[in-house]
């Protein structure tokens, strides 16, 4: 067994266990750190520059977090990127460059997803009829969300589950059929997809004047958010509208928070009140830091989220997001992605400069 296989085995068993203590988590995090320090060369340079070597890093909290933008500039992988079973890319780009996350095998990603999904979304049931408001994996081979949803359908969907988007957007006829079918038969139904697709769906249903009362046990999973997610009112309106239009309790409207640069997702326990508390499984831990100093902020204060995901055995376990949040006893509040800052004075801000430069109006 080569070293990667050993690492994968170790991670696999760790995830399979029911829970983990601080000591076990630390041990695996440090093992992965040593492995990534050795084989992921850009990461090693990054760590050396920070003065953090396997010898000085004593706990998972010491592992230097890699800013998500680095996935755009550097190839963060312990194995040759050409050997990857899957390459997930970010949707956002800077100057046309997408962040890339290499997975030499999807074994761990899939294991992480299914165990966590079962526990947080399926809960009491084994299978459910699903409608997917997102393109198929085939159409978006580099989308981690497309893969995630395909996996959800494959493992937990009944065979009548369907994709509800086509090249023209949401297939409303199909959607209406599905919703009517659920109402008539009383068979619980699950709608899963990108948050903005739900917004479009709600607009369409409102235009048609249609509302539904889906059977008990039906549920919703949205992810990705829409602009200004930090605005409580807008989020609140979103879930209120979802709940009243489809007749699903807000506690059954689950929001998933995931990023391309991780192999593990976070969920809430429904959105009765917003913002909801997000939490992840025992193989991922989150810290909330002051972005300037890198120090943890006191509990209850706003900061930027740093995730240490042991499912990321091949890239880097620890990433620094641009998501603002607040640490809580049982998880964290996700307050949304930081928007660009405007100029305070009369000096030009980076965004404005880029905008002017791209339009050519600065000439």
């Amino acid at each position, binding site marked *: 067994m080569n070293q990667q296989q050993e690492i994968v085995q170790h991670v696999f068993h760790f995830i399979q266990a029911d829970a983990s203590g601080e000591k076990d988590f630390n041990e695996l995090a440090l093992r992965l750190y040593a492995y990534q320090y050795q084989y992921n060369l850009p990461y090693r*340079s*990054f760590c050396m520059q920070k003065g953090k070597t396997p010898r000085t890093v004593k706990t998972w909290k010491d592992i230097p977090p890699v*800013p998500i933008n*680095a996935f755009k500039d550097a190839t963060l992988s312990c194995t040759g990127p050409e050997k990857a079973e899957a390459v997930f890319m970010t949707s956002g780009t800077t100057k046309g460059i997408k962040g890339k996350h290499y997975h030499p095998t999807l074994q761990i990603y899939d294991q992480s997803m299914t165990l966590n999904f079962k526990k947080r979304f399926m809960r009491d049931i084994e299978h459910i009829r699903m409608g997917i408001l997102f393109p198929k994996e085939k159409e978006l081979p580099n989308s981690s969300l497309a893969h995630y949803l395909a996996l959800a359908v494959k493992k937990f969907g009944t065979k009548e589950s369907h994709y509800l988007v086509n090249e023209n957007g949401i297939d409303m006829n199909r959607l209406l059929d599905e919703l009517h079918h659920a109402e008539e038969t009383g068979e619980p139904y699950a709608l899963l997809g990108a948050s903005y697709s739900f917004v479009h769906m709600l607009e369409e249903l409102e235009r048609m004047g249609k509302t539904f009362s889906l059977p008990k046990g039906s549920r919703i999973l949205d992810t990705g958010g829409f602009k200004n997610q930090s605005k409580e009112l807008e989020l609140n309106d979103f879930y209120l509208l979802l709940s009243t239009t489809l007749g699903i309790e807000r506690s059954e409207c689950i929001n998933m928070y995931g990023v391309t640069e991780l192999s593990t997702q976070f969920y809430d326990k429904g959105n009765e009140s917003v913002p909801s508390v997000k939490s992840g499984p025992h193989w991922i831990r989150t810290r909330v830091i002051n*972005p300037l100093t890198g120090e943890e902020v006191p509990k209850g204060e706003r900061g*930027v989220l740093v995730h240490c995901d042991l499912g990321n055995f091949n890239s880097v376990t620890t990433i620094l997001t641009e998501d603002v949040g607040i640490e809580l006893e049982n998880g964290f509040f996700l307050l949304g992605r*930081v928007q660009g800052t405007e100029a305070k004075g009369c*000096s030009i801000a980076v965004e*404005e400069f880029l905008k002017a430069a791209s339009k050519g109006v*600065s000439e």
Partner: protein
Amino acid sequence: MRELAGYLPDIGETEFETKILTFQSKNETVEVEIPFLTTEQMDKVIEKVKKASAETLKSFSISEIVSIIDQAIVRLLDRDSLYRQKAEKLLPIVTGYDEEIIRLGLTSYLKTFRKKELQRFLIEDLGNPLLLDDFQPRVKGGFSKALGPNVFTHIWSGNVPALPLWSLISGLLVKAGNIGKVPSAEPLFSGWFAHLLVEVEPRLADCLAVVWWKGGDEEREHSIFEQSDVVVGYGGNDSLQSLQNRIPVTTRFLPFGHKISFGVVSQSSLDSRKTWQSVHQAALDVVRYDQQGCYSPHIFYVQHGGKVSPKEFARFLANELENFQKRHPRRELSMEESVSMAAWRQREEMIIFSNPNNEVLGNQANDWTVVYEENNIHFTPSSLNRVIKVIAFETIENILPYIAPHRSLLQTVGIAANPNELFEWAELLGKTGVTRITALGSMTSPEAGWHHDGRFNLLDLVNMVDIEAAAEESSEQFAPYVD
């Protein structure tokens, strides 16, 4: 603590809706209450200012106006005076800048509006300041008089303290009635100055107003601009564009967009003794108002070939910024600013992988950052708040192609060079669109009578009224003394 902002002429009403802006810095909070007028009240204010400008302000001689402004400025320069004390106490809380930076900045800025500077200001633009009082003979024949607008509206923006004084004083010098809209980032100084002027000369009471409304309030802006002769606007190009769309073609619009400035350091200035001085001055330009001014540097281009290398210059600069951090700490940043700054620095750190000659210098708390770059000349803005690039270059011609595409965004260049280079470089930089060249250390304090973004401060505000020679000659034949 609560402070009333703004200034209103007497329009026979005392009840105004107000808007409260709350500012917090460290452990102190200030609530700024600013009048928010109804459209009818605003119309009354404009009417009042227009009338007072025509009847009162225009009857003052220019030397009287200069003297009134001078007296107001003298009071503001006096650290024991009421408004100066308010400024020193409240502006650090409102803007977040260090107290000493504000105190020093105010003094160096205000002293450019003393009587002798105002006189220079007038001569610079008009040649003969009496043009503002009377018809003056012209060299070509005939007579001319410079007439300022009756209503001059200012849309100020940004948090650099006291910046509105530029246009407000320019307006006063051309005897315009002034209506200013304060920026919500620093709503206080312009109102204090208005009160002070009226204390010095009570007859000015109805000649100006300092108010607030929410930017983009189309109906209100349309109505105000309709009634203005000249509008000056500060801000980003997007907001200026939307202002322009609401300004009738008969109203003159003077937009001042956000700008980018930089420094150029010649190898001739880089000896072991003089470099320290240049570095100190360069650091001051970075530290003052944390680079938020349009004249603040984003980049220093440093020439190879001196006794001190560009890389050493960068390290010295880092050292100097660390010293300043102790004396004049940076403004506290918001979460958004912190994240964007951290992201900027991390990105620079990642670039080192592909360009090992680069250096990213900073302290643990990210209070400042110096990025040194070699073999990669470019022109991109800094994320500000004491983030500066030092880029090595061989000849000025290497830099120009990177700057030239951004012509409309260029403003100040701080230069450390010998006299020959100064003029040669000024020629080349001027052609690319730079409008102001100054010494390092002076970037943030333009001298009296400067041409803001290359334009005239006063000439752009006035209309010249000409009596042509023909009229003068022809009048002679109708004189009672004609033979």
